[in-house]
């Protein structure tokens, strides 16, 4: 699978010898094999020219950029190379038809909820007191079927998350990283900063995978399609957040790889320092690379691949070939 490139240093990107060339401010030069690059994530200050963007488009490489504060700012989403009017129509059809949209959205919420339970049950087995959250989420899961509109479905999803995040303090057991409540834009404590950072990374990764399918990232099902942003990646990310992002956070904190020294207080809330971002990304990449034995396919599949498979299942659902079933972890 093609690699993701992360840029933290300041410098310039060029197209040189038909490949990617990066020169840092300090004058360090480096060639990066294009054929092995899938995405580029930019955290530093980087100069780019049109020639380079043209080249990325030709090679179907997405470029994501993050602000000075580490927040996702946008993507250079090259021309669609997998164009399918048919798929867009199917997607739109399933979005416009309230019932069809609801059935997909329900499955997405159900998948997210079940994966959350999977994480909590793991910690329950390790004698953490997470019973309350488990009970709440299980009852909420039961109400999905009776839910008849998207806003109330979103509410269930929100309540599930709330109950889930309540269990975080119990799981992490670090007084420095208490959860309190979910705050975003800007996150108001360390744990919220980690969650936000991890989630936005996952959103971009999902977007990258969507780009490699015929689906259109602008039409989501659980998240309302609007004029502002991509939404399908948010939908898909819901299912994988507990499995990927939250587990990475637990292991980062459990192994003390990130401590309170890795943060600084800025006007934009609490921010992670570069070292912490790198550390987080490295662990996340590690996670995405690990493979599991897929029950249906019968062979080893990486987490990143699982995201793509999820999209393929969605495509099949939209085409009316096979009803979508969200991926639910069994471990």
């Amino acid at each position, binding site marked *: 699978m093609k690699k993701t490139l992360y840029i933290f240093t300041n410098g310039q990107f060029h197209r040189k010898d038909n490949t990617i060339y990066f020169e840092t401010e300090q004058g360090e030069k480096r060639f990066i094999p*294009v054929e092995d690059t899938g995405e580029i994530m930019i955290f530093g200050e980087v100069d780019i020219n049109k020639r380079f963007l043209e080249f990325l488009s030709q090679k179907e490489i997405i470029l994501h950029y993050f602000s000075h504060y580490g927040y996702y700012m946008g993507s250079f989403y090259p021309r669609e190379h997998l164009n399918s009017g048919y798929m867009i129509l199917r997607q739109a059809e399933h979005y416009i038809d309230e019932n069809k949209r609801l059935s997909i959205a329900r499955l997405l919420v159900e998948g997210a909820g079940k994966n959350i339970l999977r994480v909590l049950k793991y910690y329950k087995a390790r004698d953490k007191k997470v019973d309350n959250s488990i009970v709440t989420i299980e009852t909420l899961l039961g109400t999905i079927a009776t839910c008849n509109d998207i806003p109330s479905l979103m509410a269930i999803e929100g309540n599930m998350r709330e109950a889930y995040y309540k269990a975080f303090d119990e799981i992490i057991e670090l007084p420095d990283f208490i959860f309190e409540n979910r705050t975003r834009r800007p996150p108001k404590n360390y744990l919220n900063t980690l969650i936000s950072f991890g989630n936005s990374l996952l959103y971009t990764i999902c977007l990258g995978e969507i780009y490699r399918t015929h689906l259109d990232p602008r039409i989501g099902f659980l998240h309302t399609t609007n004029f502002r942003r991509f939404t399908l990646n948010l939908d898909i990310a819901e299912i994988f957040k507990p499995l990927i992002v939250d587990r990475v956070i637990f292991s980062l904190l459990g192994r003390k790889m990130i401590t309170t020294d890795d943060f600084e207080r800025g006007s934009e809330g609490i921010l992670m320092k570069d070292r912490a971002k790198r550390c987080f990304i490295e662990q996340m990449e590690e996670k995405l690379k690990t493979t599991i034995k897929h029950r249906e396919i019968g062979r080893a599949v990486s987490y990143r691949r699982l995201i793509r498979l999820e999209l393929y299942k969605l495509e099949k659902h939209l085409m009316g070939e096979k009803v979508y079933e969200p991926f639910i972890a069994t471990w």
Partner: protein
Amino acid sequence: MFVILVYDVNVKRVAKVLKTCRRYLHWVQNSVLEGDITEANLKKLKVELMKIIDKEEDSIIIYILRTTKYSARQIVGLNKGGENLFI
């Protein structure tokens, strides 16, 4: 799969060979590149290289490792290049 590519070609063609290889693999040292590559891309790379080199005079060796699990990489002295996903 993971490959290590080494080449020994006439100076007239080194630049061309290097440029071609750099699109697929990470430069490690003079005349040595390595990295993950798909089977299809390896084929493509080989075809491109064949067009450049003189089969009577130049030599390219590609070591193919299905997995790097049983291999280790040690560097003595300078670390000149290699794979790095973080810059």
